[in-house]
Structure formats: C-alpha cells, structure tokens
C-alpha cells in the first residue's frame, strides 16, 4: 500500500538552500567570466592599437587581409544593399500613401539608409562574413599549434595576426558601408522609377532635400566602430577557442553573436551621443 508521507521540511529547506547557493555561485561565476572577458577585450584592444604603426609597416600583409576580408565581401554587400534599398522604398511608399507627399520619399530613404540601415546592416552582414572568418581562421591556427609556433619563434601573434586583421576591419567597414549606402539608395531609386510610379526627378530632389554632411559623418563613425568590434571580437574568440572542431565552431558562433549584440548596443550609444541634441 502506498503511503503519502510528507517530505521532511528541514530537508526541503536544506535542499532549496543548497540549490540557491549553487545557482548563485554559478551566476556569480558567469558574471565574473563576462567581466573578465570584457576586460580582456579592452586590454587586447589597447595592445593591438599600439601595434598598428608596425602593421602599417608591412603593407603586403595588410593588402592580403584587405583583399581577403574587404574586396571579397563586395558581392555580398552588392546583393544585400540593393535589396535593402528596394524594400525600403516600397515600405516607405506604402506608409506615405495619402499622408506624406512623394517628394519626401527620397529624403526618408536617404536618411534611413545613411543613419541606420547602411551602417547597421552592413555591419551585421559583415559580422557573419569577416568576424566569423577571422574567428575560424585563428581558432584553427590555435588548434594546429601554429599560434604556439609563432610565439616560440618570437613572432608575437598580436603583431602578425591580430593587428593587420583589425586594421583592415577598421578601414574596410567605412568603405563597404559607403558603397552599401550608395547601392541601397540606387536600388530605392530604381524600384521607385521602374515599379512605383515615382519620377526620377521627384526621388532625386527628395534625396537632396535636408541632406546633411553630418549624416555621412555619423555613418562613417558608426562604420569605424563596428569594424573595430567585428574584427576585434573575431580575433578574441578565435584566440580563446577551445579544442577540436567543437571549439572552432563555438568560437565562430560566439564571434557572430557577440559582435551582433555589440553592434546594436554601440549603434544606440553613437546615435544617442551624436544625434541627441542635433537640430534642437
């Protein structure tokens, strides 16, 4: 016969207490690990920036990275930017109907692309293209003891691996973002003229309306910061990768996830700092 005995309350309390302590320790450990990682990234960033002059003294290595990371990304930028511009125009036209004159279509698309869509979408796409590539490459080198071999040969990995990649990341993103913005606006113009019944004159005069060089400045600042974040986090996760194929995969995933989150965080911070009081 089954008995319905109540559990001993003291034992229950003890178990709950034990579990609470264990969970608190785990959370505290995770928070400490995160703080250590943030500190590690900042410390690494400082050391790498210090090495930029040396990296610039090796133009061959910088050019190689520029080709691998920058030029090779152009087809992807071309496709994504064109479609982003086209869909922006269609969405804007839909929202403007019977409310806002169509001469503002070019204005709204240009502002949207320059201040937000261009830099953020380029950065998010590039975190998958450049950041993951750096993380996977460095993690594989670590797994195959190539990083140790460099250290043993007194060829510091920060100087020979990190500095050229991060330098190219910082330089490539503003260029890619500029191209992306141009293509997005061109895509919007194309879809307006061909498919939405807006004349070329109306769209282009709208793009010139309220155009400000400051918008381009904000776009380039965002692109520069995003370039640093993507390449730095790619390298950081690569060099701290665990062993084996699992370690390489995790490093790649962490690099994309962390840089995506940081891009959105810094997007807000830069916008808040640079756009908050402008025009008031």
């Amino acid at each position, binding site marked *: 016969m089954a008995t319905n005995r109540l559990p001993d309350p003291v034992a229950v309390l003890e178990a709950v207490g034990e579990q609470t302590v264990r969970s608190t320790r785990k959370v505290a450990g995770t928070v400490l690990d995160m703080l250590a990682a943030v500190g590690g990234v900042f410390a690494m960033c400082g050391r790498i920036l210090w090495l930029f002059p040396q990296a610039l003294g090796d133009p061959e290595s910088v050019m190689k990275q520029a080709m691998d990371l920058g030029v090779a990304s152009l087809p992807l930028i071309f496709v994504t930017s064109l479609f982003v511009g086209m869909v922006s125009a269609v969405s804007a036209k839909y929202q403007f109907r019977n409310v806002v004159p169509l001469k503002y279509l070019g204005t709204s698309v240009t502002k949207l692309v320059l201040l937000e869509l261009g830099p953020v979408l380029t950065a998010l796409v590039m975190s998958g293209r450049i950041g993951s590539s750096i993380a996977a490459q460095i993690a594989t080198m670590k797994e195959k003891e190539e990083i*140790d071999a460099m*250290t043993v040969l007194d060829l510091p990995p920060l100087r020979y691996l990190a500095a050229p990649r991060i330098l190219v990341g910082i330089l490539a993103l503003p260029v890619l973002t500029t191209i992306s913005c141009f293509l997005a606006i061109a895509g919007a113009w194309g879809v307006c003229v061909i498919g939405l019944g807006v004349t070329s004159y109306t769209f282009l005069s709208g793009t010139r309306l309220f155009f400000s060089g400051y918008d381009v400045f904000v776009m380039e600042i965002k692109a520069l910061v995003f370039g640093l974040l993507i390449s730095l986090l790619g390298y950081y996760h690569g060099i701290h990768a665990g062993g084996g194929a699992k370690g390489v995969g995790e490093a790649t995933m962490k690099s994309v996830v962390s840089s995506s989150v940081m891009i959105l965080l810094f997007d807000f911070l830069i916008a808040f700092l640079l756009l908050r009081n402008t025009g008031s």
Partner: protein
Amino acid sequence: MPGVQIDPNDEIIQLRHLRKSFWTTEGEQQVLQDVTLSIRRGETMVVIGVSGGGKSVILKHMIGLLQPDGGEVVVEGRVISTPDYFDAATIRRKMGMLFQMGALFDSMSVGENIAFALREHNEGIPEDSVDEIVARLLGLINLNPAFASKMPSELSGGMKKRVSLARTLAVEPEIVLYDEPTTGLDPITADVINDLILDTQKQFHVTSVVVTHDMVSAYKVADRIAMLYQGHIIFVGTPDEVKNTRNPYVQQFVRGQRKLESVAE
C-alpha cells in the same frame, strides 16, 4: 651521445618542483605534481611517459608557453617562470621547438615558413641570402630546394616535421625541444627523424630535449632518459641504465606491459 663532451655541472635548463593543474569538465586535474629535472648543456635528454601524462606540458614550461602553478623554470641561470619576466624574447630566441604535428603556417609555402622568422628578426637581410639559407636548410633535412615553393598541405606527415625542424634551425637556437617527433610516422620515416635529431646535435651543438613514448627513438637519440610517472620524474639515467634498472614502473613502460605485477616478479 658518443663523441660529445658534456659537463655534468653545466645545467642549461632546470625544472625545480614544478606543479601544474588544468581545469577540465571533470574538475581539477593535476598533471605535474612535483617535477624536478636538470638538462645539461649539449646533451640530448629524452623524457618518456604515458600519453597524456604531461610530457608536452613540461616542454611548454621550458619555453615559456605555460606558466607553472608552483616551482621554477630556470634557463641559463634565469628564472623564466614568473609572470613579471619581461625578457622572454631573449630566452625564446635561444630556443626552438618542433611541434607534434609540425605546426607549419598553412597560408605560407615551405620556403616562406622557413624564412619567416629569419626575415622578421633580421631586418634588411638580402633576399639572396634568405634563399641561400632556405636551400641549405632544405638540403640539411634531405629535401630538394624545389620543395621551397610547395604548400604544407602538399607534404606528408614526415616531411612536415622535417620542414618544421628546418624552420626551427633557421633562427640558430642553442636549445631544441622536440614534441613527439616520431609519433604517427612509419618506422623508416621515424628513423629518418631520429637521424636528423642526431645530425642537428652534431652540426649545431645544440642541447636537445625530446618528449616521446617511442622507445626505439629514445634509445637511439638519448644521452639520458627521464621517466615521468604520475606527475613526478621517477627515474633519470643513460639508455643502458634504463635497460638494466629494476625500477618496476620503468620496466613496465619500456617493455610495454599492461600490468605492473608481471614486471615486479
């Protein structure tokens, strides 16, 4: 090794009471419990022990890739195992290491691999000199100069290790560390590597530390053999002393026997 004069009091590397633990999913694993070992200038010391026993960890401490939890690593009379040791580059340039899988830089050709450190440490060195040194080193490891343009992916395991040795020798080290140099190779290629270790010592008068579990290799290249067992160095002696010792753990390992009891009988 016969023919090389070794001063037993001239100790180039000293490991003093080295301790090292790693955190794994199963908790803390103490790999080195109390390792004390001295390497004499000019000798070839072979460290033997079971796989995963910490032999490579010892090598990585010698060259500063790992910092111990306790104890000291002394190279040329200097303690290099403290975190505030700033002169690591000076010591590293005296040392070279041959990694288990070669660790060649995949994105560079064989020639570029060998010349990389040479070019970076000797600014302005003429390309003719670099090419000459690369060809000489390739000759030393019995490879045709045409191999300079090949990529590491085109080489066999044995060739990769030989090229890795050439890359190590390009910076003219005084100490060469070999991490499992014959592991994964057929007996004939392994013997080629053993001969290269001997030739390197003869020609460059280097001090060598070889980590291996290959007893054929150990007997062939060693001046002295040290056995690592459960985080301690339990035996140091010449190859003949290893063969004749009554230490049951050494005999178990040398004979490749699974049970200790059968050795002790």
